[in-house]
């Protein structure tokens, strides 16, 4: 004999009991009106829950949502464009600096009769010295200020573009 509690009855309704237990439950339900009443109550709850009404969204829900989806795509494109633009600008500035240094070095270098490797090493050392000079104590604050300024301006426009895309 098993005790017909709610747990067993719920499992019986959900078909989670093995054949042996199912038979025992059936016998006990037939023998006890109180258990049968409990089972019928649970079964009716189960059946009524299956008929729960489904809520309906407002009439233009899908259309409005698709509009938001399109806007989010547009704003994503705008953000990507902005990031690419800023990165391009930075790359161009860096390229400009490197180009300037290289040109400066090439036009000021004296002709040499040394071997190719020695010439290359010497020129590399000179280039490094030039860059070191550029980022020396006197110039670092100027370069830092320029980069900070560009970063601040970019940050401001980025913030504005994100704000704009969220509003629309």
């Amino acid at each position, binding site marked *: 004999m098993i005790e017909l509690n*709610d*747990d067993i009855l*719920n*499992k019986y309704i*959900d078909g989670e009991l093995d054949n042996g237990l199912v038979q025992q439950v059936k016998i006990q339900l037939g023998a006890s009106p109180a258990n049968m*009443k*409990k089972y*019928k*109550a*649970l079964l*009716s*709850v*189960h059946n*009524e*829950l*299956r*008929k*729960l*009404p*489904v*809520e*309906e*969204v*407002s009439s233009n*829900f*899908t259309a*409005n*949502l*698709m509009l*938001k*989806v*399109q806007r*989010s*795509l547009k704003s994503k494109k705008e953000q990507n464009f902005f990031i690419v633009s800023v990165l391009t600008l930075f790359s161009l500035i860096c390229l400009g600096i490197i180009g300037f240094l290289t040109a400066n070095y090439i036009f000021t270098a004296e002709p040499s009769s040394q071997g190719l490797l020695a010439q290359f090493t010497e020129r590399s050392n000179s280039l490094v010295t030039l860059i070191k000079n550029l980022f020396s104590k006197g110039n670092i604050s100027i370069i830092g200020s320029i980069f900070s300024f560009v970063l601040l301006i970019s940050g401001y426009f980025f913030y504005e573009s994100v704000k704009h895309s969220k509003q629309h």
Partner: protein
Amino acid sequence: MKGLSDQEIIDSVKKGNHSDYAILIDKYKNKALSMLTKMLKNKMEAEEVLQDSFLKAFKGLNNFKGESKFSTWFYKIVYNSALSRLSTQKRKTESEMTSIDEHFDLESDNNYNIAEQEDLSLFINEMVKKLPPNYASVISMFYLEGMSCEEISKVLETTENNVKVILHRSRSAFKDIMIKNNYIKEVYD
């Protein structure tokens, strides 16, 4: 397009046919709204959260690899969005589904006159609205969406057994109220 599976629709959206996402919206909007309304107890808020959930799902669609069903993945977003809305509002809620020891007393909380309620369906519907959010979500996913306990456990990030306990406790609570109010007699006698 209507005969397509969720995965086929998602593939199409990923390929750039963004308008196909509307098919997924139409498929899930009402049932997800039902779950959210039962969790948040407010239809307008539920619709807002549903919109956010669909947007989040759209933005994260590239991360959906099809390892689980789209419905499981989507309902996870919906459920978590509802929980964060509830926590924002500082409503009393059970945010961790690992805890199933939440006690609820449908009767003491009940200002709804059960004895006067003649329609059993309406009575059950009213009772479901009074369930705590996690219980309401399990009932909605199981009965409205037809999800299995295993799928629901993935959505709620808990064990299958916990889901079954929640389901059985809810049914038993309804049953007790029905017996107490002699509802069963009317239905079966």
